[in-house]
């Protein structure tokens, strides 16, 4: 079974530029998550989709970050304009159902490492 795919794996941009990341979840997984992992910290949830609807985006800096999952399958996360503090690894994960009391397992992609100069 193919895992969660992400691209690109690495990206270097200058501040105030824009950048986009792509994620393809495991086939059949309804829920997709984007996390930000700053060096030395645990991942922090940015946004959660259930099919093509947003379930939770309370931690997403909406003035500069946007995400979409138009057909309920793959997703893109965009940063515009980027700041130095956006340097991090951006992780995509998917699960069969919704995370919550049932403890659905989330499967993670390899991440995109972003460096903002």
């Amino acid at each position, binding site marked *: 079974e193919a895992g969660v795919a992400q691209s690109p794996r690495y990206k270097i941009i200058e501040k105030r530029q824009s950048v986009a990341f792509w994620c393809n979840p495991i086939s059949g997984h309804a829920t997709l998550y984007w996390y930000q992992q700053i060096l030395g910290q645990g991942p922090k949830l940015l946004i959660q989709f259930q099919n093509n609807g947003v379930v939770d985006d309370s931690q997403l800096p909406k003035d500069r970050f946007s995400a979409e999952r138009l057909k309920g399958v793959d997703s893109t996360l965009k940063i515009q304009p980027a700041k130095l503090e956006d340097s991090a690894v951006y992780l995509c994960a998917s699960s069969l159902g919704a995370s919550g*009391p049932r*403890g659905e397992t989330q499967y*993670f992609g390899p991440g995109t490492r972003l460096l903002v100069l």
Partner: protein
Amino acid sequence: AQSVTQLDSHVSVSEGTPVLLRCNYSSSYSPSLFWYVQHPNKGLQLLLKYTSAATLVKGINGFEAEFKKSETSFHLTKPSAHMSDAAEYFCVVTGGADGLTFGKGTHLIIQP
């Protein structure tokens, strides 16, 4: 609301000796708890999870964890460390309407 505290940022053990990575949690609901491992430049991999069944959970690569409600703990153990166990380990809690909440991670160092 929920939170996770990993009590050690770094743990160093000798190869062949036991491993103990400590985790305490806080949750308003009956939580589900996970341990994930992250090797350098690789994605997060699920080691094991607790979802209100048996309190002693066995995972991959010889790891296990015990859910202790009275102590609000979910410590990760392995009887004998291997060099390939060197990685970052994350304790994770979920429950209610909240998504996953990650601890800050414990860096496991294996001395030859």
